[in-house]
């Protein structure tokens, strides 16, 4: 008979067999989980990327020192992209009272293409989002600009040849950029006013920008067309290049979602393997019969592969439909909470999921299925002549690796994937070893015990191989559930807590040395928290170990500070930080040292205002740039204060009640600039909370996969357990003996699996926090107590429920059915 015919007959005829449904369920769940998670994370990821586009106020920006040609703007139109022009320059603005250097930004209608502007009618008034831009002849000013020029809304400012009326107060612009150290305040004006201001003469440092936004493919196409047309000093800036606090938060958010997807992958793989092993075990008699009746190994193998292909097709279809519905449901649930519109799911992601299912089946289900071709036909007469089913050779690692590589590629985070897969592999190994040891012990105990204990203990040790596999799978399933239910919540809470409520939200720059102390005292008086006042010198880096450094944006003019002890949010990773009183030493941030190529032991020479400072690098620090503390790439020992001209910089958290006091204080120090980064910090908090909500829904899918693994693991030995129970009931054992025996067996499995899963979840959580989210996670006693108890009860309960039918079915029926 031909293999196609045999495979379809097997599929159709076996469709009534429970074990085949289990395998299909495994594949469907795998596909559904993967497709829901990857489709959703892909959509979320792209949406977040677009939101990251807010930091550009566009999806793509063409920036340069020369005006941007008209035909490039037309090209954007041709690609159905919305576009907006922008000019930025630094210039001195005048009011009737004062003058100061401002960063002027001229924008055309449509700006910002991503994100929204927030403005207020007055300083300290409530701000609102707007889709407008300043009308010609008017300007919107940053609150501190009002203070610096000593003006109010309605007053005039003079910009080049124009007089502009201050119309509103600008409190937030999505593409503020420049970080907290942008010294000059912002004035937002109409594009035409800058063009006609007479300020764009030769020698003026002007930044011309064309902002574009629209469909992803159109933006890409536009980028590709424009790339070859770029002139000198023009470049394309993409949203992903946004290197700022928001970007860092988004990156961490994406990692949370990736954890969910990878956990689902691991669980799905385990579920498929367990179901395939159970299915093949139930098929050995069938294969022996087929062979006895004359089916060849080749026919059987082809039929089995085709059978698997049918299953994959069914699973891909069913799984993708479920996955699609799932991700749509998540989107619906979150739509009220999501400010960002999600882009449409991509077919390429679905194709990737289909390929994943195929490889998953090839890697995890095919080896046990192919093993069936070795079933000897003699099995039909004498089962003892059958070989033990094995999972085959190492060659199967290829499709397994390929199956696991797909989500890794889709999520493009190798470090995370290695951590998750490596952690799971290590835990699986630990579980297998622990289970094996436990089996050895139970074998000894079984010999010494009686009644139900003997039945329970002997049951475990008799199925040594199956029990080890079962405990390993249970442990992995439980670990993922614990990771999702407890560790995830703790990670998110502790991550949020890593940006405490009183994170510095104000910076003061340009304080002169004699002003630092009284200013600090005034800040303390007004209740400022998390206060840090630090010296800052701007110096030229003259040489590194006697050689002139390469030109780089990191070298040349550098900011450095001095301190006599390691500042907060810093960790020494190489060398040793100096003790108070030390001199001639330098400590560098890891990022700067790597970029410039400086190591501990190198000497560096700085020059500022004719003074030279020479010192040796004695430590390299890892700096938590997300802490919003004042941090420096370069720290030196305090004797530099006497050599280098410097100013002071302060960071602090301003309580709401101190707003007016701070304005008052700032007026007393006109040379100092006070910067409010509260909006930026709020934005980071918003992103964290939004993504943690999204992650919860994504994790729900992984949770289902975890539960399926638990059930598959418990089902794996159910048939054998049923037969044995029927046998001892036939021999006269009461239901109580069988029940106690089963409870003992499940309890021992649960004890091993729950203990190791709890420890594994704590270790993986700690590693994830340390390596990926850069904070220190402390597993709570709740994880160890509740997590363990819940896991234990879940396994015993589920095992118990699954085996209730064992006690209800007359033993004769079970034994007859074989």
């Amino acid at each position, binding site marked *: 008979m031909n293999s196609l015919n045999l495979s379809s007959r097997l599929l159709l005829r076996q469709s009534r067999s429970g074990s085949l449904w289990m395998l299909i369920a495994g594949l469907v769940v795998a596909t559904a989980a993967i497709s829901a998670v990857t489709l959703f994370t892909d959509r979320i990821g792209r949406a977040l990327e677009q939101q990251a586009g807010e930091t550009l106020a566009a999806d793509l920006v063409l920036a340069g020192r020369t005006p941007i040609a008209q035909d490039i703007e037309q090209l954007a139109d041709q690609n159905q992209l919305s576009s907006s022009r922008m000019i930025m320059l630094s210039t001195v603005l005048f009011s009737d009272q004062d003058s100061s250097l401002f960063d002027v930004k001229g924008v055309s209608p449509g700006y910002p293409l991503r994100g929204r502007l927030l403005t207020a009618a007055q300083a300290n008034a409530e701000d609102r989002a707007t889709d407008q831009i300043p009308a010609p002849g008017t300007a919107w000013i940053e609150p501190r600009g009002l203070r610096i020029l000593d003006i109010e809304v309605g007053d005039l400012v003079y910009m080049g040849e124009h007089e502009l009326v201050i119309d509103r107060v600008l409190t937030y612009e999505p593409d503020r950029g420049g970080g907290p150290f942008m010294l000059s305040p912002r004035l937002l004006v109409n594009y035409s006013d800058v063009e006609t201001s007479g300020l764009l003469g030769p020698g003026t440092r002007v930044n011309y920008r064309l902002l574009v936004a629209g469909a992803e493919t159109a933006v890409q196409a536009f980028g590709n067309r424009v790339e070859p047309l770029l002139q000198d000093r023009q470049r394309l800036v993409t949203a992903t290049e946004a290197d700022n606090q928001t970007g860092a938060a988004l990156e961490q958010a994406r990692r949370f979602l990736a954890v969910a997807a990878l956990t689902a992958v691991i669980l799905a793989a385990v579920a498929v393997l367990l179901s395939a092993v159970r299915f093949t075990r139930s098929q050995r008699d069938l294969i022996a*019969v087929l062979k006895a009746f*004359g089916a060849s190994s080749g026919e059987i193998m082809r039929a089995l592969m085709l059978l698997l292909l049918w299953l994959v097709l069914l699973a891909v279809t069913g799984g993708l439909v479920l996955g699609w519905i799932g991700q749509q449901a998540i989107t619906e649930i979150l739509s009220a909470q999501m400010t960002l519109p999600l882009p449409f799911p991509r077919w390429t992601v679905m194709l990737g999921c289909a390929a994943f299912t195929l490889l998953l089946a090839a890697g995890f289900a095919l080896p046990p299925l192919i093993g069936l071709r070795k079933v000897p036909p003699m099995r039909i007469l004498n089962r003892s*002549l059958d070989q033990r089913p094995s999972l085959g050779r190492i060659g199967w690692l290829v499709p397994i690796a390929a199956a696991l590589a797909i989500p890794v590629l889709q999520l493009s985070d190798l470090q995370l994937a290695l951590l998750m897969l490596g952690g799971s592999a290590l835990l699986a190994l630990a579980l297998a070893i622990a289970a094996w040891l436990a089996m050895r012990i139970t074998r000894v105990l079984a010999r010494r015990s009686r009644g139900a204990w003997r039945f329970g203990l002997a049951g475990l040790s008799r199925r040594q191989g199956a029990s080890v596999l079962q405990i390993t799978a249970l442990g992995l399933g439980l670990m993922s559930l614990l990771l999702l239910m407890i560790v995830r919540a703790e990670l998110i809470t502790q991550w949020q807590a890593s940006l405490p409520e009183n994170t510095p939200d104000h910076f003061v720059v340009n304080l002169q040395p004699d002003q630092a102390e009284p200013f600090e005292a005034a800040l303390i008086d007004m209740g400022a928290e998390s206060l840090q006042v630090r010296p800052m010198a701007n110096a030229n880096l003259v040489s590194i170990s006697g050689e002139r450094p390469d030109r780089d944006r990191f070298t040349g003019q550098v900011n450095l500070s001095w301190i006599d002890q390691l500042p907060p949010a810093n960790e020494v990773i190489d060398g040793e930080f100096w003790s108070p009183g030390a001199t001639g030493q330098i400590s560098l941030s890891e990022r700067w040292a790597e970029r410039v190529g400086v190591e501990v032991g190198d000497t560096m020479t700085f020059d500022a205002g004719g003074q030279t400072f020479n010192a040796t690098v004695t430590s390299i620090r890892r700096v938590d740039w997300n802490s919003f503390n004042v941090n420096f790439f370069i720290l030196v020992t305090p004797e530099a204060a006497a050599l280098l001209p410097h100013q002071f910089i302060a960071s602090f958290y301003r309580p709401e009640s101190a707003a007016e006091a701070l304005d008052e204080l700032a007026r007393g120090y006109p040379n100092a600039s006070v910067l409010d980064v509260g909006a930026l910090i709020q934005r980071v908090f918003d992103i964290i909370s939004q993504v943690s909500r999204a992650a919860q829904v994504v994790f729900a899918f992984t949770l289902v996969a975890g539960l399926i693994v638990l059930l598959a693991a418990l089902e794996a030995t159910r048939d054998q357990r049923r037969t044995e129970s029927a046998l001892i009931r036939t021999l006269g054992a009461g239901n109580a003996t069988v029940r106690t025996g089963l409870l003992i067996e499940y309890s021992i499995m649960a004890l091993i699996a729950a203990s190791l899963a709890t420890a594994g979840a704590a270790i993986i959580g700690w590693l994830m926090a340390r390596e990926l989210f850069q904070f220190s996670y402390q597993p709570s006693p709740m994880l160890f107590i509740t997590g363990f108890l819940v896991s234990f009860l879940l396994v015993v309960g589920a095992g118990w429920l699954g085996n209730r039918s064992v006690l209800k079915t007359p033993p004769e029926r079970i034994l007859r059915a074989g």
Partner: protein
Amino acid sequence: MSVSNASHATPAPARSEQILSAERVDFSVDAPGGRLTILNNISLSLNSGQTLAIVGASGSGKTTLLGLLAGLETPTNGHIELAGTQLNELSEDQRAALRRARVGFVFQSFHLLPSMTALENVMLALEIAQLDQVRERALSALEQVGLSHRLEHYPRQLSGGEQQRVAIARAFASNPDILFADEPTGNLDRSNGNAIADLLFALNEQHGTALVLVTHDMKLAERCQRIAIMDDGRLSEQPPE
């Protein structure tokens, strides 16, 4: 056709050519205590249409010999010829091809596929044998064993006797030259066992099939033309009465 009808069927023409022969066959396996010899220097032959019973105590090796004779396994030493073909020279797949063309089986524990109906079980064997008119042949075979009214029943819905009838229908449906039966009544009570034996011998006679029957039931063995006794891996044939 029912059982009673079957016994009145016209016998197939007698065939005298040799269908099966075994020459100095040994079979041993690796066991925890070392090499274990199961069959020792066994020789026999069987002509077409002949019936041979192999009797012996449990563990004497009779079922293993049946498997070797049917080409389910190859001997450690010696030669077996089935339907004019040396089994030793064939690969497992070639032996499978020979079985599907010439051999039928009836097992002690029936070995029906639990997820298939009686009709589907018979059809599957015919499909493997790559015969045409599979459904018609299966229907006819089931009618011969008196199960026309049980076509769509699953094995679990059939009694032991009925299950063995399905297995017999499956074995004869492809019209094999030789039938191997391993304790065909071993799982049945006396009355069902007798009925199955009647059916088996009736169909055997009707189809002119050679039969190798393994049993420890001497009464059943005595219905065969020849009886060979298996004792501790050695075979000796009882002289005909």
